[in-house]
Every structure is written in C-alpha cells, then in structure tokens.
C-alpha cells in the first residue's frame, strides 16, 4: 500500500450550526454563553397521547435560505438542516465550494434516525391501506445515506462520502472519520457534522422509556428528571493545517485525536460502571499523547437522565481521578435538549469555540449537587477559562462511545 509517512495535522476553520438557541456560529455561541434555553412545548405535532410535552425544536427554519443547487421540494427536513449547517460552515470558513477540486472534497455526516418524517409519511399511507401511493419519494428521501449525499450534491463534492448513523455519538464518529481521511491524504477538505429532525417516532420511544423530563433538562442535578428530545445540525470545516495557513484562514482549533469503543453490554442502558465511556476517553488521550491533567474543558454527554449522568460521573472519575473535580465539564443539552445525531457535532463545535474564545458554556437549570456527579459542571453561568485542550464525549444506543480531542493549534 502507498506509504503515508507523515500524517498531516488537521484543523477546524469553519463552524456552522442550526440549533434551538441560534443559527450560525455567532448567534449559536452567544445563545449558549447567555444560558438561553431552547426547550419548550412541542409545536410540530399534538403531544396529548404522550406522557410528556417538552421538546427542543427549531422554529421558523427556512430551508430555502440555504438550499440553492438542489430542488428544495426533493429534500427531507434532516437533509435541509444538514445543508444549512454546511453552507453556514463553508461561509464561516471563507471557502467557495465551487472554487475547489471536487475530487479532493468529501463529506462525513452522522445521524440517529435519518429522515424519520419520511418514514412517518410512509406509515400513514400504510395504515390507510394506500401503500401504492407512496411513490418514488420514499426511496429518494428516506434512507439515511441520502443526507450525506444531498450535502455532496448541493456543494459538488466528489471525494469520500461517509454517512455514519452511530446514533447519539454519530457527530463524533463523523469528525473522527473525516480526521483520518485528511490525515492520510485521501482528501484536502472535509465537512464533518451531524443532523436529525424532530419526529414522533423518536418522541414516542423516549416517552415510552419514561426518559423525557416534564419541564426542563437538568444535567448533573440531584433532582434531574430526564432528557428532552430536540433537533438540529452542525458542521465543521476540516482541512490540513498547511492548507489553512496558505489561505490565511481563521483556525478555531486543531483536531488532536479520538477514541472509539463499544460497551457490548446493552442496547439502551450504558455499562453500570461507565467502562466503555472510560475506554474511549483513555484511548483518545493515549493516541494523541496527552495526560488527563492536560485537559482544560470537557463537553459532557450529559443528557439529564438519572442513569446517564451518574455513569458519566463514574467514568470521568476513573479517567481523571482528582483532576475531575477541577476540570470544567458542562452539558449544553441543558439548553439545546438532546439533538440526537446532531448532538455530538454541535458539541464538537462547542469544544472548538471554547478553545478559540476562552469561555466555557454553562449547565443551566442546576440547583442541587449530586454526589455521583462530583465535578465542576459550570452551573448556570458561562465562565472565562483559557482552554488549551477540550474533550468531547458522546455515548449512544447500541453501546457506541466516542471521545474527540480539540486543542490550541501550536507550531
């Protein structure tokens, strides 16, 4: 095989986000630092049959503002959210996609459910005995690979195309996949992100598990009552350092390494001691040559369910030891809800911005400390902290865990 002796360094030069607290890097980041809450009563469907009514939806999203080359009418909502995030990220990076070599540009996207609203439409026909009226739309819109495909078609990218449906850790899987493709020289620019849309299928599932909080999402609080389903998309522009320097791009952060693992324990419940989560963090640190003490900020998975947050506490205690108590570790899900496949992509953007900006976002709705979550969750107020190295943690159904490290880009 072709030798790649010196893997290239990879940096983040653009950030795009479409979230319940803001659209675009600046509005999104300001919303988080202000502790703005993006959750509220669900608008997109009637929640009366469910034992819950809170959600984190993106109000007044206009796909037409972002989709230019493809016909908007042929795209599901998740694809539209994804294209919006990528367009914002490319603009943020100052990159004109049509000025690039298409063969050297690729896409890595994550999702949990893909385009669940297309499934719902199919099921409505099914329940009405009208499957012969499904038409060609289902196959051109529903299968999740079309999301990464639609992004590549909108921006004319002919390089590697990875759709990684790794559930709620998918954004981190996408960033790590893109990182490797750039390091080994298989592409010169990758967009990496995640997207999911609000859906009755996801909502019914979490409601049935009793996992949805009645009023608000309170990660790490002793009286936390659950997560809140949400929707959104985020994308990062990743490119080799030398290319970013050549074009005088703003470098938000360098991607320094990652660790992936699997609990191999249970589909929906994490390992009781957080074993897989700890192994992902340890691997990320080991492969990139850092010690736990060098980490200055952790973006927690922090869903706000009693179990997740407790196990996460165990896992960081195992990896960080005493340092766990002084390293700020917040959960933006307190503000955004759980945006599913978009979540860890959004949180990757958060990590890059903490490195770039020297502020860390808060965990809002925090009232009473939980002894099982014995760390500094940045309660309620953003804080100014110089961030040298940020770790992004994400855990998923199926037991998939992913930790990614972002840091200051030093010579």
């Amino acid at each position: 095989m072709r030798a790649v002796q010196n893997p290239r360094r990879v940096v983040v030069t653009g950030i795009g986000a479409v979230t319940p607290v803001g659209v675009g890097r600046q509005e999104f980041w300001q919303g988080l630092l202000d502790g703005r809450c993006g959750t509220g009563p669900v608008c997109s469907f009637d929640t009366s049959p469910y034992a819950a009514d809170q959600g984190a939806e993106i109000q007044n999203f206009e796909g037409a503002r972002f989709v230019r080359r493809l016909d908007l009418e042929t795209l599901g909502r998740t694809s539209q959210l994804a294209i919006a995030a990528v367009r914002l990220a490319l603009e943020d990076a100052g990159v004109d996609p049509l000025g690039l070599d298409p063969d050297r540009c690729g896409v890595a996207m994550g999702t949990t459910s893909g385009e669940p609203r297309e499934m719902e439409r199919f099921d409505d026909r099914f329940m009405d005995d009208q499957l012969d009226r499904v038409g060609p739309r289902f196959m051109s819109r529903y299968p999740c690979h079309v999301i990464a495909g639609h992004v590549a078609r909108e921006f004319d990218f002919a390089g590697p195309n990875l759709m990684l449906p790794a559930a709620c850790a998918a954004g981190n899987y996408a960033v790590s996949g893109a990182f490797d493709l750039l390091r080994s020289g298989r592409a010169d620019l990758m967009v990496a992100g995640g997207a999911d849309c609000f859906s009755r299928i996801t909502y019914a599932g979490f409601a049935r598990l009793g996992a949805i909080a009645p009023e608000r999402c309170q990660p790490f609080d002793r009286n936390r009552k659950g997560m809140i389903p949400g929707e959104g998309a985020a994308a990062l522009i990743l490119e080799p350092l030398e290319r970013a320097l050549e074009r005088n791009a703003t470098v938000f952060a360098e991607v320094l390494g990652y660790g992936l693992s699997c609990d191999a324990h249970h589909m929906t419940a994490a390992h009781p001691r957080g074993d897989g989560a700890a192994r992902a963090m340890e691997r990320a640190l080991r492969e990139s040559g850092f010690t736990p003490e060098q980490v200055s900020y952790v973006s927690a998975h922090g869903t706000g369910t009693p179990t997740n947050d407790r196990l996460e506490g165990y896992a960081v205690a195992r990896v960080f030891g005493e340092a766990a108590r002084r390293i700020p570790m917040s959960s933006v899900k307190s503000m955004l809800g759980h945006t599913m496949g978009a979540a860890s992509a959004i949180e990757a953007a958060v990590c890059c911005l903490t490195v770039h900006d020297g502020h860390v976002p808060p965990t809002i709705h925090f009232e009473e400390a939980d002894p099982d979550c014995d760390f500094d969750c940045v309660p309620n107020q953003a804080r100014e902290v110089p961030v040298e190295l940020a770790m992004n943690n994400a855990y998923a159904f199926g037991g998939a865990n992913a930790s990614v490290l972002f840091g200051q880009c030093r010579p």
Partner: protein
Amino acid sequence: MNPPRNVVITGLGLISPLGDSVAKLGEALCAGRIGLSPVAENDRQPGVDGRGWPPVGAVVDFDAARYLGDGNLRPLDRAGRLVASAAGLALDDAGMDLDLRRQLEVGLVLGTMFGSVHTISAFDRRAVTAGPNYAKPMDFANTVINAPAGQTAIWHGLVGVNSTVSAGTASGLLAIVYAAELIRQGRSKALLAGGGDELCAESRVGFQQAGLLAGGGVDEEGHATAARAVPFDQRRNGFALAEGAALLMLEEEEAAHRRGARILGRIRGGANRFDPSGGTDPDRGRSVVAGALREALAEADWALDAVDACSASANGSVVGDRTEARALGEVFGDSLPTMALKSMIGEALGGSGGLQVAGLMAAMDCGVLPGIHGLEEAEAGLSATVVSARSRRLKVDRGLVTAVGIDGHVGALAVEKAA
C-alpha cells in the same frame, strides 16, 4: 507515526440466499444455481398490487439459533439476527475466541442501508394506532440504524470500534474500505467488516414504488413487462431485491501472524468516492467510478494487467449498470473478466459488498469465474472477454470489487489471494 500496516483477511462469514459459507456460495455460483424465488402470495401487503413483481432473494428457513445457540434471541430483529449470525461464522472461521476478542479489542464496521426499516415502521404504526404507551421498548432499541451493529457487539463481546456505514447498495463495500483504513493507520488490530440487510415488505414497497425493481413497468400495448434483473444485459429493467449478511475478519498482518492466524487474502487498496450528479448523469458517474478504480489500483500498486477479474456490483439497474460498464471500459478496455453475482442472489443492499468479496474469493479458490445468469445480449461496449453467461476456467489471484450505488455512492476494493 509508524508506516501503514498491511491488512489481511483471516475469516469470512455469510448468510445468503445461496448458502452460509464461501464454499457453498462458490459451488452454487459455478453451477449456475439461482437463489431467487417468487414472493409468496401471503407476503403481499394490503393496498399494493404485487402482480408482476420480480422474484426475491430470501434466506429461506433462516434460523438464527443454528448459528447463535440457545441464548435469548428476542431482543434481535431479523436484521440483527442475520448480521450476528454472519459475525459468529466469521469469528469462528478466523479462530477468534472470546479471550482473543477481548485481548485484541475486536471491533465491527457494519454497512447497512436501513438497519431495520421493518422494525422502525412497526414501532411507529403501533405507537400511532395503539398509543405511545403501547409501543414496544424493545422495538425502540432497534429503531436506531446502528442497532444491528450494537446487537452483534453485545452478542459476541466486541468491545472495539463499533461503527455503522450507510451508503445504500454500496454500504457493505464502503464499510470494508473504512475498516481497512482504520487498521492501516494503526487504529485497530482486528475488525469485522462488511454488512447486512433484511428483506421486508417496507423496503420492497419502497423500491417498487420508486420503479427500481425489475419488471412492473408497462409496455406500449399496456401489458406488464416481465422482470429481467440481469446485470449488464441490454434488456435489463431493474434489480431483484434480496437479503443477507457477509462479514470479513480483517486483521493487521503482523498481529495475525503472531497469533498464528490462517491468512485467506489481503486488502491491497480501496476507494470511497461520490458522484455529485446523484447517479443521474452517466458521464459524471463514469468518471467518478473510474477515479475510484484508479485510486484502488494505485494504492495496491497494481498495473492494469495485474488484475485478473472484477466482482461487479451490477444488479440489473438501467443507469447504474451502464455507469459501471463504461467505467470498467474506460480503465481496462475490454480486457477484464467480470462476474456479477447479483444475477443469482439479487441485490442484498448492505449485504452485497461482503458477498461480492466472498464470491471473488470463491472464484480464487476454485479457479472458475461464475457466468452472469440470464445474460443474452451484453450492454454495448462489453465484449465476451468481459462478461459471459457461462462460467469459465480462470486463475484469479488479484481482483477488484466495485460498488456503484443507486444515488451516487461509489466504492472500489483491491483484494489479493493469500500467497
């Protein structure tokens, strides 16, 4: 950073309409046996006229307990069972016992188009008709697209990387390309890689409504056209839907030697590309597929005449097969003997990539390249050297495996027989 590692194949497991081992698959392919059968009357869905539908490649009488023992299979749906069964066969074939799996932190990169679109639909319909309080939590766990990968990891104790790659009919091959790269870069020592999908009413209706299945059209006189799911044939009119799962055990070569593993073959190169026309512009598609073939060849450091055969992804699709044929022609002229096993097993979606590799390795083992079942008149530009209805004797040591998805995903893989 150490130099890139070599990637070897040390095991193969498959569940297919033509048997559950490379030997059985190879024997059936060479004998020209087909694994397609008519859709059962009682398996049609209300509201859909199933007349004239093409046959399907079902794994008939599939019994997961035969492969997975008497543990509790209830949490696994059909997609999960197909994949977990193929994984068990691949692990056994590679001699990878539980201790070794833990020690090597064996992971899984699974290609799947849907996970289980049947489970997702059934969960949703029950939540709507009976109310969300009556939806089944066990089904919800399987509504995530990575459910088959998660279930398989739980069943077999796979604690390494657990990744799912979705790229339609290219899913399985692109999963193998991705996994090989993880090993090459030293990220993993041992990964199961390949894919799987189940046959179900939801996907069958979806493909039929999209006009992608063979037959079902109407001729000039208003009669339903007969199904002709024949790869590279002039009169092909779509594919036959199938199911199956196939996984390779991939390992870093030195680690494999150290544990005394039997080496079946090597992954020499791979490529992942995308056609930004989304499969609508055959010229753009041809150049993207040709680019993928050249990338895999360059990585393998193979000259054109070093390649003995191609295991093609052609499935009878009108546009996709033409794109693939033209790309093979652009790169190899009319010199590369090509097999297309989907003529006999149909389009197994996520399962296809691994099955194509298995088919190629069977041809390497028995020295026979299977013919393309039903081929009468080949697509323009494809000579008899390239495609043939009849099986032929051929020494195959090096082969390419291709993936040309329905809407733009493209992959290529260079596979070499063990010395």
